[in-house]
């Protein structure tokens, strides 16, 4: 589905990460975590082919679904929810040709994210959580084999966060879609995640949650003492140095 071999990314003299090797199998849910500026979004862009790697290779399946950061869609945007999903199907094609069964596929994709009743609503008038569900449908409608989610939970309320992560999880179970899920918070995806890629300070660690989220591992990554505590199925991390904003 996705294979990175000795991949590295640098902007000028600034190395985001290097020597990154990662294989994601069908149906696997991999969470990508790390501080601001650690290169999580750049990783997604490199996988999408929008950002060339400075070293190593990336091999990726055809058919990637992409769920971007939640950004409010302007109220007057002349699109209904079904049109947004339709863009995921054929928005990139030239001309006006439409494939047979288009409407049915769009309806099914909306149904799959429990948004059938939103189909004819102006997308700009939906709530943030509803818009993000529509975006998940847009990413899934073309039947991707790999789903890239870049902070899809940002600025969503807790209920919408749960809905969106549960939808992504359902998809990979039912269709074997591999999932790479960028998030700054592990807890919302904790019930679903198979492995974690943790980026920090130009280095990284790949492993299960139990392997990566230990005081030892994170202290090593950040180079300062970091404390990891588990409280009632929630992981709390203390002592992460604040990222310096450039």
């Amino acid at each position, binding site marked *: 589905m996705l294979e990175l071999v000795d991949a590295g990314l640098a902007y000028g003299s600034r190395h985001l990460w290097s020597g990154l090797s990662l294989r994601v199998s069908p149906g696997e849910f991999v969470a990508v975590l790390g501080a601001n500026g650690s290169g999580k979004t750049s990783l997604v862009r490199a996988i999408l082919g929008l950002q060339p790697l400075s070293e190593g290779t990336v091999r990726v399946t055809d058919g990637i679904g992409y769920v971007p950061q939640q950004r409010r869609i302007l109220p007057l945007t*002349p699109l209904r929810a079904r*049109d947004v999903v339709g863009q995921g199907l054929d*928005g990139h094609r030239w001309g*006006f040709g439409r494939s047979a069964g288009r409407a049915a596929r769009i309806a099914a994709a909306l149904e799959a994210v429990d948004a059938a009743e939103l189909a004819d609503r102006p997308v700009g008038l939906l709530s943030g959580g509803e818009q993000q569900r529509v975006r998940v449908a847009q990413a899934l409608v073309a039947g991707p084999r790999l789903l890239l989610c870049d902070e899809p939970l940002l600025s969503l309320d807790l209920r919408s966060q749960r809905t969106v992560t549960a939808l992504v999880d359902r998809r990979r179970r039912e269709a074997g879609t591999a999932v790479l899920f960028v998030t700054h918070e592990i807890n919302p995806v904790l019930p679903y995640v198979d492995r974690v890629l943790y980026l920090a300070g130009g280095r990284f660690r790949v492993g299960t949650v139990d392997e990566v989220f230990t005081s030892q591992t994170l202290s090593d990554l950040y180079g300062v003492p970091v404390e990891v505590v588990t409280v009632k199925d929630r992981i709390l991390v203390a002592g992460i140095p604040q990222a310096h904003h450039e």
Partner: protein
Amino acid sequence: MSEIFNFADYGQLLALVHNSIAAGAVLGLVGGLISVFVMMRDMPFAVHSISELSFAGASGALLFGANVVLGSLTGSILAALVIGLLGSRARDRNSAIGVLMPFGLGLGVLFLALYKGRSANKFGLLTGQIVAVDTPQLSWLLVTSAVVLIGLVVVWRPLAFASTDPEQAAARGVPVAALSSVFMVLLGLTVAMSVQIVGALLVLSVVCTPAAAAMRVTASPVLVTALSVVFAVGSVVGGILLALGSTIPISPYVTTISFLIYVACRIIGARRTVAREA
């Protein structure tokens, strides 16, 4: 009132101005379509700037005895491409556009001040001169429109994708930056056309207001496009027909019809959002 309106010889007048009516209808069609993207891409301010530069180009051509249409086209396409290069984010763009606009207008005023010819020509570039559409001008208009229409048909879907969701479109392989340049050229052509007919100061009533009005009453992309074209053709052709029986130029009629349609759409649209939230 009788001095402003006089429809006594309307039939004869109509025969004389069929060129203008054809020009108005074509401009309405193209303007209505382009305005959908102008609104999607949040570009009304940029359009105004392009039309000022188009005015500068046209008045420069007038002064130097060159083809006015060609001058207008050169100015507007140059401006459109420069604005296209400024980036797609409205915030980055707007300050540069605000700088470009008075420069264009000032340049145009300078050229007109130096021009010794008929003063009606001067005023027409700013506020419109559609009654004067002659056959060569009409054929030029038709050719430009055909170019814009064909261009729009080819790029419509990916351009709409890139205009409403550039990130997702880029992720799906849409050449977002290239499409932006293509759109700016099509926009430049449309603006140059509009400057010839409604004048540089009033271009927005044809290239922005129609879709802005349509977007108030529906979110269906097909319906927005259809309504936008109907509104644009209605205001331009309606404006010409009303102006025929009067001594007032065409522009105030076009802008007033266009504005009234917008107000009506806002009123209808306000009801629609309230009903939805209830």
